[in-house]
């Protein structure tokens, strides 16, 4: 008990509030009706977890969580809007599917993790005084484990490039090079929904995208 008394009551209060924020915003991800809102609720949840990591003296990993998740959730929200044909994610939309499997997986996950938290014998290893979390993490990642981290990094980069190549190859109306013009009514015909006058007037492309 004396070991755990070396932090103030403020840390405990902060932990409880952040944990509640993480859980509530995580729950809101599935109850909201918009992809953009869901993404940013998830971001709030991750930020709360990052702040808890800072409380646990993982100063680099906690802060890294903030900027990684900020960019990741923005990109995710925009990609979902682009690929889901829901104009700007503003139309109400159900955020859950395959509910039975999801409920089963959720309960199983909760039971396993809860059992681990309650019954596992965690080692008692208080932080050594004078621990430099940033330096020790850097030595870990670029020392003994460098091969693993670097290979994982290159695999992830290759995956990202591959996904962009695959997903940008085909647009909503055919090849990506077709642009955003709708296909013709007859195969190879003029784009549908384009009036005669527009064609004669030429230029003024902004009028076509309705």
């Amino acid at each position, binding site marked *: 008990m004396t070991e755990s008394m070396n932090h103030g009551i403020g840390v405990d209060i902060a932990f409880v509030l952040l944990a509640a924020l993480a859980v509530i915003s995580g729950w809101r991800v599935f109850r909201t009706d918009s992809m953009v809102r869901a993404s*940013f609720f998830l971001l709030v949840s991750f930020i709360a977890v990052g702040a808890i990591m800072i409380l646990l003296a993982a*100063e680099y990993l906690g*802060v*890294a969580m*903030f900027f990684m998740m*900020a960019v990741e959730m923005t990109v995710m929200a*925009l990609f979902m809007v682009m690929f889901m044909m829901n104009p700007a*994610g*503003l139309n109400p939309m159900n955020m859950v599917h395959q509910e039975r499997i999801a409920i089963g997986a959720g309960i199983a996950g909760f039971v396993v993790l809860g059992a681990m938290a309650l019954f596992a014998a965690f080692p008692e290893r208080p932080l050594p005084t004078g621990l430099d979390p940033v330096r020790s993490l850097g030595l870990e990642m670029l020392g003994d484990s460098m091969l693993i981290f670097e290979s994982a990094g290159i695999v992830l980069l290759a995956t990202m490039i591959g996904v962009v190549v695959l997903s940008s190859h085909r647009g909503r109306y055919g090849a990506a090079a077709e642009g955003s013009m709708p296909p013709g009514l007859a195969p190879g015909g003029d784009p549908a929904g384009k009036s005669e006058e527009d064609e004669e007037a030429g230029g003024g492309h902004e009028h076509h995208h309705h």
Partner: protein
Amino acid sequence: MIVDQLILPLLMVLVTLSVGAYIVAVLDRLMAGAFGAPRGGNVWLAPLTRGAWLLTQHANATEAPDWRAWRLAPALYLALAAIGLAVMPWSASLVATDLVTSVVLWGSVEALATVVIFLHGWSANALLTLIGGYRYVALGLSYILISMFVLIGVALPAESLQFTQVVASQEGLWNVLRQPLGLPLFLIVGLGMTFWGPLDLADSTDLAGGTASEVSGPPRLVWDIARAAMLVAFSGVATTAFLGGWLGPWLPGPLWVIVKMLAVLSVLLLLGRWLPRLAPERCVTLMWVVLLPLSFLALVWAGAVALWE
């Protein structure tokens, strides 16, 4: 303990925030006058008058906005500026929060600013604000990357991610001379992220005000203060990262910081008046094709200098 660690730092950040935003408004008006723009009324009173006027105005409503996100976005942007000012050291010991990863926290502030600006544009449920939000995300990704590379550059000689260590590493030579590309790139990012001058593409007049086009009254006041406060935070971080922070002869450290911040703010506001305007598409190209490779170069330069030293 609570007074030392909570109330005093909070007070320090709040004072910097409000005084800084006021100074930005005054400096900008003085510069507008110097550039021959018609000046209405007293330069020192005009920001306060405008603020009071906005406070009394009706807050506009659009059709079915996301109210919570729309009202929160300006406040969150102001909070991000406050985080930036909180990690900026005034002297070796006078700093609101001396986090060991404060450089990375500032990077997160820039990344989260993208989220907040997009939300501000998205949640109004209106066309022009939405275009402004999308426009900012397209530009904001390049701003984040450029700024991250030049900030990794200043962390190299310091061998630390802590702003106080970054200043201490400039005892012999300021980073503005050691890494000449860093400061100009960082200032351009600062103008872009606060939509100042010609880089106001997310809130520009061609979109009738972009993400802020539907915002009036008190929320508009918060948005304007937040932008000015973010510019102050940028000047603080630029002072810390490139201009040696509190280092300097004769004067006490915090005074040096104020002098340098005012100088950086003047340069930023001057650039805002001087730089030419670019179309958003060409601005994205400029960022990715010219400035981002330049920031790689700045990082390679910083690494080579760090090895040589």
